[in-house]
């Protein structure tokens, strides 16, 4: 919803800069673009759903930074928290 203040607020070049930075930093910090992350997420869901019924609402997949073993600073790591609703193999 647009407030009255938004209506009067011009899209200044500094606002453009801020918005662009916020977007680019998400993918910089993650080490990959949001589109690719979304594709990875969908592929993981598809693959796991073949065997297990998962809780889609509790699903959390993101890319974080973790310490590398080779002491080259931090490397990105895929973090996935996938709550299982039911193991399909249990069903007849």
């Amino acid at each position, binding site marked *: 919803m647009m407030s009255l*203040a938004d209506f009067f607020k*011009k899209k200044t070049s*500094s606002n453009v800069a*801020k918005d662009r*930075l916020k977007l*680019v930093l998400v993918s*910089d910090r993650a080490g990959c673009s949001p589109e690719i992350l979304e594709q990875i997420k969908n592929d993981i869901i598809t693959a796991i759903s073949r065997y297990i019924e998962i809780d889609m609402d509790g699903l959390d997949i993101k890319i974080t*930074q973790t310490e590398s073993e080779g002491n080259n600073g*931090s490397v990105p790591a895929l973090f996935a928290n996938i709550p299982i609703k039911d193991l399909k193999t249990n069903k007849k």
Partner: protein
Amino acid sequence: MGEVIVITSGKGGVGKTTTTANVGTGLAKLDKKVVLIDTDIGLRNLDVVMGLENRIVYNLVDVIEGNCRIKQALIKDKRYPNLYLLPSAQTRDKTAVTPEQMRKLAEELRDEFDYILMDCPAGIEQGFKNAIAGADRALVVTTPEVSAVRDADRIIGLLEANEIKRTHLIVNRLRTDMVKRGDMMSSGDVVEILAVDLIGVIPDDENIVISTNQGEPLVGNDTLAGQAYMNVSRRILGEDVPYLDLNGRQGLFSKLASLLKKN
């Protein structure tokens, strides 16, 4: 025991060397014993900004390689009783020094000095790793431009990964006239994006160019930039210094606009 502070930015040309020179000189003016170390091997600059280029005998690489003692390489700044410079080597490259050697050097200087300031080269390669190796805390310099802020974010991440616990931000070359008309991000905008504590806002001031021309840091004189840099030095000592009003007077319209924004 002295504190080791690295001044870094990622992007080149945002004012690391100028900041090192002025903040370091400011600390010396506040009666602290300070050594400035130029870690940019091959692209030596801190010596000219400090106006000490004619007094170099030995350099950082000489010290590391054991060609001289540390004391022989330190240039005493005659204008301030507590200020020293360890210049970089101009004819070598960054592979001449390792992070472990830098850490050792910093440890040795801690006994002698209150503050050891490392002027970091641009980039995130070996020169950066050398500069941050022995550091307790970091000052990240950025300008309110997308490229500089993006690089600063990367640097902040790398500092965290290297377990440098205290990182503060300096927003350099702020032009309040442009911020006012919405054509430059404010220091608040930059802090919001980078989510790191601010320690200084330096206005874009032509006196910086004049002071660099003369090889005389302007910290503490009556220019806006000189005052702003002195405030950074005071905040490093832990003083709670209010931020300068870089805006000058505020127009009726912007006053109205900020009133409306609050609601």
